[in-house]
């Protein structure tokens, strides 16, 4: 019996427990003439019984699945004769894998030693035994839980509070999950980065002005060291993001003001969905739009003015990225502007302010915290955006502030470092993690600064 079969059986049992708990409470209610004499509604007694039936059994099931394999492998390895056992732990694991593969049948048993074949047989038997044992124990626990939970059902029993307590813990567990996942990602990036910083000093990485991660395979080759100065990448990221925000913030904000304050209902009904369609275009589509349409056009335009524009320029990538971010800013800003109470507008209009004075002096200041928060989210998106930049702004790590040049960004470099066949102990690959960590720190600082700015300048209503 597989674990998922047990799981579905358990769900079925819980459903049954729900009806039994509910039925029991209805029975009691019948004796007392009416469910008004129960403390909680019958459904709550049902949920309570179902929780007792399902929850402990489910926890046991999870525990069993986690502990199951390692324990069985350990038992099998212990029973092997001493002379077969290797001394070091790597080969120990290899042998365990071999036995496992034999047991599953991936590895044909022909030509293997007797000892291993019998070990594989033992492994199979033990696994079989464990599965049945798991099914029996879990279902037994579920039945005990059911009986236990049902025995609580009584007129004065506060099932409602108990169930809600469990719901509260479930919510807490979900919140923890999100936090621990983030923490896990950060830690894994951190450890890989530390690995990287063993071979490249931190200050070389953070302050270095040259980025060329190509390391030679043989030590005697030319350029075998590679250089890992991250500054050109961050300058490139900054450049592309600044270009993008220069387009996205004014256009997005003004379109939001138009939609929220001036547009009549029918314009709004068409314009908002149209903007949201813009948000739904995949970035890869924006990417080839930037690379094949905008970049050549900008190059030709630049030539007609006598400027030399690289055919993959920060300007092209930033401009298209800006267009991509417009709906993001405009939709968030539109929401916060609409949320400003009408009383604010009335107050201003009644003073003899015009509509635009009202928007400029009252509505926008009142909506500012939300607007800034939206812009910060948009900046984070711009920094993290990869596809457009890969396609439109090139791979050359030029240290330049000229938007007409070709630049590369942090995310683009992470992509190029990690795609294809890589060895995971060379600084070239590990650099990707260090870049990720830096990027994370930079966005974190940006967010904190933005929050402080908002706190300082917020004009609070209500």
């Amino acid at each position, binding site marked *: 019996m597989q674990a998922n079969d047990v799981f579905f059986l358990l769900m079925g049992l819980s459903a049954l427990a729900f009806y039994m708990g509910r039925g029991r409470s209805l029975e009691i209610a019948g004796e007392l003439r009416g469910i008004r004499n129960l403390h909680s509604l019958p459904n709550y007694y049902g949920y309570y019984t179902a929780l007792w039936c399902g929850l402990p059994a489910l926890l046991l099931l999870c525990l069993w699945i986690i502990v199951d394999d390692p324990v069985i492998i350990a038992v099998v390895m212990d029973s092997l004769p001493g002379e077969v056992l290797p001394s070091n732990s790597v080969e120990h694991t290899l042998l365990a894998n071999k036995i496992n593969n034999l047991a599953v049948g991936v590895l044909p048993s022909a030509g293997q030693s007797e000892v291993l074949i019998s070990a594989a047989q033992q492994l199979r038997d033990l696994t079989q035994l464990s599965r049945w044992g798991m099914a029996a124990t879990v279902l037994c626990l579920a039945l005990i839980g059911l009986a236990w939970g049902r025995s609580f059902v009584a007129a004065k029993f506060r099932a409602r509070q108990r169930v809600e307590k469990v719901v509260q813990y479930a919510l807490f567990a979900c919140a923890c999950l999100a936090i621990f996942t983030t923490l896990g990602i950060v830690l894994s990036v951190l450890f890989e980065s530390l690995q990287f910083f063993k071979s490249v000093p931190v200050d070389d990485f953070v302050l270095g002005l040259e980025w060329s991660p190509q390391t030679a395979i043989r030590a005697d080759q030319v350029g075998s060291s590679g250089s890992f100065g991250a500054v050109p990448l961050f300058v490139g990221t900054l450049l592309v993001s600044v270009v993008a925000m220069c387009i996205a913030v004014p256009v997005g904000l003004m379109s939001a003001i138009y939609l929220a304050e001036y547009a009549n209902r029918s314009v709004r009904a068409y314009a908002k969905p149209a903007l949201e369609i813009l948000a739904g275009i995949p970035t890869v589509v924006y990417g080839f739009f930037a690379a094949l349409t905008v970049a050549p056009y900008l190059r030709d335009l630049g030539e007609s003015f006598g400027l030399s524009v690289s055919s993959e320029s920060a300007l092209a990538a930033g401009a298209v990225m800006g267009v991509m971010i417009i709906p993001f800013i405009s939709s968030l800003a539109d929401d916060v502007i609409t949320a400003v*109470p009408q*009383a*604010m*507008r*009335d*107050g*201003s*209009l*009644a*003073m*003899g*302010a*015009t509509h635009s*004075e009202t928007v400029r*002096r*009252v509505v926008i*200041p*009142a909506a500012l915290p939300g607007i800034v928060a939206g812009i910060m989210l948009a900046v984070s998106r711009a920094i993290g955006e990869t596809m457009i930049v890969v396609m439109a702004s090139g791979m050359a790590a030029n240290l330049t502030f000229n938007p007409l040049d070709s630049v590369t960004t942090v995310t683009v470099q992470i992509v190029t470092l990690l795609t294809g066949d890589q060895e995971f102990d060379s600084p070239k690959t590990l650099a990707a993690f260090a870049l990720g960590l830096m990027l994370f720190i930079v966005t974190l600082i940006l967010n904190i600064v933005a929050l402080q700015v908002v706190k300082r300048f917020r*004009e*609070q*209503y*209500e």
Partner: protein
Amino acid sequence: MQKTATLDADDMADSSIKSSVKVTNANPLDITDEHVTVGSYEVNNAKMSIKNVNVYYGDKQAIFDVSVDIGKNEVIAMIGPSGCGKSTFLRALNRMNDTVDGCRVEGDIRMDGQDLYSPKLDVVELRARVGMVFQKPNPFPKSIYDNVAYGPKIHGLADTRVDLDEMVERSLRRASLWDEVKDRLYQAGTGLSGGQQQRLCIARAIAVSPEVILMDEPCSALDPIATARIEELIEELSQNFTIAIVTHSMQQAARVSQRTAYFHLGKLIEVNPTEQVFTMPEHALTESYITGRFG
């Protein structure tokens, strides 16, 4: 159509208030389309004069054929049950109804003889001359100083910072708020108590020196002490301003106003000197309302 018979002005030359002849209905509690406003709805020294005004929200008519004058420097109270159109009527006087979708105003509203609904009229200028205080205090999310300075700034009333400071202080003094806030002028106006916020809104409204102040239930969100302060303030302000106040409290109408208008289901039933309205109302509906039979 208004069917009030008004006596010839010459006959009433000695009185500043014209009086209408009382027309008795068969059943005074019935109001039909043929209703009649009783009492002295016209005055000689009218600041604003409203004639045959109808207000519609879409297809629904909210105000039916209302005619009334508001005298210079008088306080006129508008009372009546909820939903009777008092606020709608008030908002018609400074064209705040323009901001409501589907709202339409018909009839003739004049201030100093100038038609407020003429296409040539500048609404922005009108609202600077007819200020408004709302039911719920709505200070802007700015400092106390900036709240009061808002109007003078947008209308360019102060040439220098010193002028502006003076203007802010004067307005706050007139709203009897200065002593309470003079040490924290640059803190948020929203941090004040409800009563202080409402006085701040009054200070904000008088900072642009309007001629008329409309007050839409200015005390309904306030406690009795704050209410008393506002009422005192209204009395002081009435020396310089013409005030129209909508209120749910009959005691308040009695305390602050010289004349009282009673609205019922969008119709103006009776306008008379306040004392008369509360002691011997002309119309049976008014009497029922003030004696608490409905409302």
